[in-house]
């Protein structure tokens, strides 16, 4: 009888220990899974945003101010040319977040195979694999530059008719070897995703928005503006009247969360302003901030050449 009681007690103790271990393992596994998912989403967002934004301000070998580019295009980039000059940040009421749109060169360029006969002649390229009909294109011979919309492509030959451009004449009969690049307009914003939660969405040119990562509670964008007077860098949510192109970096803030509540008590996270804020629910939150250097900003080249006294702008 005593043996039975002892064995029953031992059995109960053992079972309790095993059960508590199992419960702890399950909850730990769930939490780890959530943190890993959030971390992977952060890495994915970082990969896309960095890749897209690093080439903002790309002008190939054209080193003059972008305001000197002969803009002929009636397309989305040409008709709101300020988007070529700097990323445009808009404040939205949804989740008190921002949306951003910018121009970049996502694909490799090509070269003119021969001299243009006239300023309205078609452009014969070495290869036109990366350029599509209807795309806006940047052409330069390093001294002059034009922005126009491609109206037709046939056997590496680009047309730039009056139908999609304000003028069919380019500013110059570009010589052989002139560089031609397809431009892309990229949008980022947060909106309600397929899961019902808000997610980060990305859109390239005229295509549909695609959900890049789910469960994004906030998305904020700040532009790093270089002040030529006191030689300091300040971050502003919107850079007003960007006559001088002095945006040298972009700061992105993302607040990600788990899809479901996983914590036993509400956690605190770092807000956009740097304060610690307590969450409103039991979901796991992770704030993420990244500063992306715009590698085509002239100021950065000056730093590379140890010339920090120079202007960050092309003249």
């Amino acid at each position, binding site marked *: 009888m005593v043996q039975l009681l002892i064995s029953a007690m031992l059995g109960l103790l053992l079972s309790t220990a095993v059960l508590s271990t199992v419960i702890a393992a399950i909850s730990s*596994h769930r939490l780890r899974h959530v943190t890993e998912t959030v971390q992977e989403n952060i890495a994915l967002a970082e*990969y896309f945003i960095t890749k897209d934004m*690093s*080439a903002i301000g790309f002008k190939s*070998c054209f080193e003059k101010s972008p305001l000197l580019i002969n803009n002929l295009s009636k397309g989305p980039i040409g008709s709101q040319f300020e988007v070529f000059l700097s990323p445009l940040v808009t404040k939205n009421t949804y989740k008190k977040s921002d949306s951003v749109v910018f121009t970049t060169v996502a694909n490799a360029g090509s070269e003119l195979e021969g001299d243009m006969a006239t300023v309205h002649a078609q452009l014969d390229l070495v290869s036109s694999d990366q350029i599509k009909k209807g795309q806006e294109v940047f052409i330069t011979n*390093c001294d002059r530059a034009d922005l126009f919309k491609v109206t037709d492509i046939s056997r590496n030959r680009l047309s730039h008719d009056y139908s999609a451009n304000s003028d069919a004449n380019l500013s110059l009969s570009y010589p052989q070897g002139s*560089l031609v690049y397809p431009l892309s307009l990229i949008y980022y914003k947060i909106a309600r995703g397929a899961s019902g939660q808000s997610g980060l969405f990305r859109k390239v040119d005229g295509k549909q928005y695609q959900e890049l990562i789910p469960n994004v509670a906030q998305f904020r964008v700040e532009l790093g503006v270089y002040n030529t007077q006191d030689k300091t860098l300040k971050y502003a949510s919107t850079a007003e009247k960007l006559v001088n192109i002095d945006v040298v970096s972009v700061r992105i803030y993302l607040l990600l969360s788990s899809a479901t509540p996983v914590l036993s008590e509400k956690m605190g996270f770092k807000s956009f302003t740097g304060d610690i804020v307590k969450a409103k629910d039991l979901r796991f939150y992770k704030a993420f901030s990244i500063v992306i250097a715009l590698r085509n900003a002239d100021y950065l*080249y000056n730093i590379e050449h140890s010339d920090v006294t120079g202007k960050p702008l092309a003249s």
Partner: protein
Amino acid sequence: MLIIYTILNIVMLRVSPLPVNKQGGSFILLVLVMTGFLAGLSLLGFKNTIQSSKLTAGFINNKLVFSRAQAAMNTAQTHLENTKTQHTDIKSSALSSYMIEKLLLAGADTNTQYYRVTTKGFDQEGLNVVTIQAIIRESDQLVRVSWQQLP
């Protein structure tokens, strides 16, 4: 294993013959079930760890490969400083490569020459490749005038 177990059983029984076993073996059954359960849990954790480390390795590899491409860009620029490229220079190693092309374009100043430098960074497995392209102007000194990452 089974043969060794049988031999050991026979030997043990001959050396020290035990009285008839009256136990039902329920305890060993319980221990076996528990061990199996815990082993399952450990295996699950092990699988998760492997998966997450693979993902992390992928992201780290990408950054490493990017750094290699960027380092190859600096190497190419140094090569340009030291030697005049006439048409195209290509150099390749196991982890990175670069190609320097002399462009037809020339600036208003006849001393100005432009080069297009394309570099690639690789990882050991050849799964990650990052391609960077820059335009470099050569006049009094070499200046990188544009930068882009290719898909």
